[in-house]
């Protein structure tokens, strides 16, 4: 299966979409949703695509439908929600690829430039910088990997225990 690019959207929007669908008994026409939300249709499509890739929404025949996983995420605590999304992200090839890269790197760190080059090679039709930003934002939310602007290094996330 080819590597699919991540749509340029955020996890908060994906979760907000799930909330809205839940308000509509789990299902709504995509056009009507865009009108209700006063949101550009193209932007909403990116959110729906993101939610679909994470398994939280399905899109049969012009509708957006909340999946059991999406419903479960809404009912979960913050940390459970993050764990669910982490698992969903790790099913995506682009995350698997970057994760492998980091696992095999010395001290599990690689320069951001390497990730950008990898993305450009893997997905030549996409804007690597935009994809990098989405990958980083999703990966940070899922606590899969982190990035330090100070060192310009991508690194494997080691979740810190909090009291």
């Amino acid at each position, binding site marked *: 299966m080819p590597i699919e690019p991540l749509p340029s959207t*955020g996890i908060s929007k*994906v979760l*907000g979409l799930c909330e809205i669908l839940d308000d509509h008994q789990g299902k709504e026409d995509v056009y009507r949703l865009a009108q209700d939300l006063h*949101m550009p249709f193209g932007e909403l499509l990116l959110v729906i695509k993101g939610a679909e890739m994470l398994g939280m929404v399905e899109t049969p025949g012009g509708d957006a439908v909340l999946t059991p996983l999406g419903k479960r995420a809404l009912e979960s605590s913050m940390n459970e929600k993050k764990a669910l999304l982490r698992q969903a992200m790790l099913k995506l090839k682009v995350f698997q690829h970057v994760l492998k890269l980091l696992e095999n790197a010395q001290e599990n760190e690689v320069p951001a430039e390497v990730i950008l080059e990898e993305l450009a090679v893997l997905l030549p039709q996409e804007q690597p910088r935009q994809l990098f930003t989405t990958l980083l934002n999703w990966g940070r*939310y899922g606590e899969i990997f982190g990035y330090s602007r100070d060192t310009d290094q991508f690194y494997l*996330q080691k*979740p810190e225990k*909090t009291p």
Partner: protein
Amino acid sequence: MPAIIELEHITKIYPRPEGESQILADVSLEVMDGEVLAVVGPSGCGKSTLLRIIHGLIPPSAGVVRFAGRAQDGINLSCGMVFQSFALLPWLTVEQNVMVGLEARGLDDETCRKRAMKYIDKVGLDGNEEAYPRELSGGMKQRVGLARALAVEPKVLLMDEPFSALDALTSINLREELIDLWGDPALPVDTIVIVTHLIEEAVELADRIVVLASNPGRIVESIKVELPRPRERKSPEFSALVDRVFSLIV
């Protein structure tokens, strides 16, 4: 439920070259311990000014603010504030932004760091500790604002149009998460005062809605919201209440 905050005959007047401008006129209000109170009203009705007077950031021209029965003088350290514009320091990371308010209260480095990490976790920001504000979406920036306000472990959380700068989907998500945090018994904050011009937001979040009129700002009605939580945004009762509040504002 006792009152945690009491405003007695609050008036605020600003001097202007063309004469005095009265922002608030004789506002008396009680905020009950443990409630979510929304203050709604048209632009310029003084709702943000009222919030800053509650926090002690600006003094009233006349009237008294009491907190837990005591007259307030200066900034109330039992309150945390969340701003519409996020008010983050761009040269600091997420973790450092959350620690700023703690350092200002004289806590040692280790306590500051532990406390910051606890609230970064609570608002779902873990993984972003090293990020700078410019790397974050609006929703994530406001999570930092929320973590910073919660980290000082306030009794009362004051929120000034916290979701107005966000898109509809992000703000729905954050509103849900705010109510989850408010219901979290592990957090010291149990009272929220939120200023908003979005009536749906007020009906979704609040136990009580205070409606202000403008020129000058004054209370026209206080409405108890008795809809069960979680609120059904599409229910006829929800819509009826939105309509009622709307009719008081226009």
